[in-house]
């Protein structure tokens, strides 16, 4: 990973964040909190809540990618490695106002972690004891990443492995590359 590319992406992230129209960060944090509470009311098990948050995040991700590509000035990303860097340096900055970093690459280069130690979604949250070991409050983010990458033909699995709300010192999302989709060419029976 060349540091000049890294710093280019950092700059893109900063620029996208700076020029975007803003809304109160508290409005986002409080709305997200209220939304999570609503989902918890509807589902009994924390595990089901985690799954629902991921699914809702996926729905957001598949729409968000367009906005991201348009506003960030990024026109393509050709590899899993590049996309992980772009997510942490550009997307996290643009949408959450924070700089995340990528690390923990495995030897095959198909798994890495996005690490961030501030989380605007979790700003005022303390998990009650019954959820401390079972709920991933910000699981929405995993779905957003999965949905957005799917739209650029990269299939991944994404999950929280560390969460400050659960007592860890930082937040860490592990992304595992599954496959790259080739865009399907329509069948032409005249051939």
């Amino acid at each position, binding site marked *: 990973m060349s540091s000049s590319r890294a710093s280019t992406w950092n700059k893109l992230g900063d620029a996208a964040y700076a020029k975007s129209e803003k809304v109160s960060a508290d409005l986002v944090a*409080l709305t997200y*909190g*209220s939304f*999570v*509470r609503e989902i918890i009311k509807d589902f009994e098990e924390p595990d089901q809540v985690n799954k629902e948050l991921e699914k809702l995040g996926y729905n957001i991700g598949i729409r968000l990618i367009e906005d991201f590509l348009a506003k960030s000035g990024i026109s393509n990303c050709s590899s899993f490695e590049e996309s992980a860097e772009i997510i942490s340096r550009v997307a996290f900055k643009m949408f959450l106002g924070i700089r995340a970093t990528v690390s923990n690459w495995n030897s095959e280069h198909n798994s890495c972690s996005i690490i961030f130690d501030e989380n605007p979604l979790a700003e*005022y*949250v*303390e*998990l*009650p004891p019954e*959820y401390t070991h079972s709920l991933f409050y910000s699981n929405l983010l995993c779905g957003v990443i999965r949905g957005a990458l799917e739209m650029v033909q990269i299939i991944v699995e994404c999950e929280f492995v560390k969460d400050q709300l659960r007592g860890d010192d930082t937040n860490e999302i592990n992304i595992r590359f599954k496959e790259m989709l080739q865009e399907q060419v329509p069948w032409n029976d005249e051939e």
Partner: protein
Amino acid sequence: MAITFVIVSPQDQLLYEATFPPVSQTDETAHLREFILFASLDILEQVVWSTRDFYLKAIDRFNDQIIYGLVTASSVRLLLVSDGKSEEAVKNFLQEAYELYVKLALNPFFEPCKPILSTSFHERIQKLGKKYFV
């Protein structure tokens, strides 16, 4: 010289109670202070709607026990009954307790009119009590 601190909802439900220094259940003076606090709730209601200030100063008096109060933006009442602690210490304690309450109340998992069970909240209130009163 002991203090009882309570948090009361706008509907007069007791949400939290702490004593400095911590006392046993059979302590008579603790019961007396609790009684005094509850007896003052009617006056408290009047005071709350007679001033815009959060800090209510001394609301009521019973012999040498004085009840001080602070009401938050969401009408939650932080009350303290003491027998002669400096008002300065009381005011500062209430201000810091108020800040802790706000942080607690912002939590999406917090429900305003339910008893406060958070151990981290309790620990920090105890620390505050030690800081100002013991």
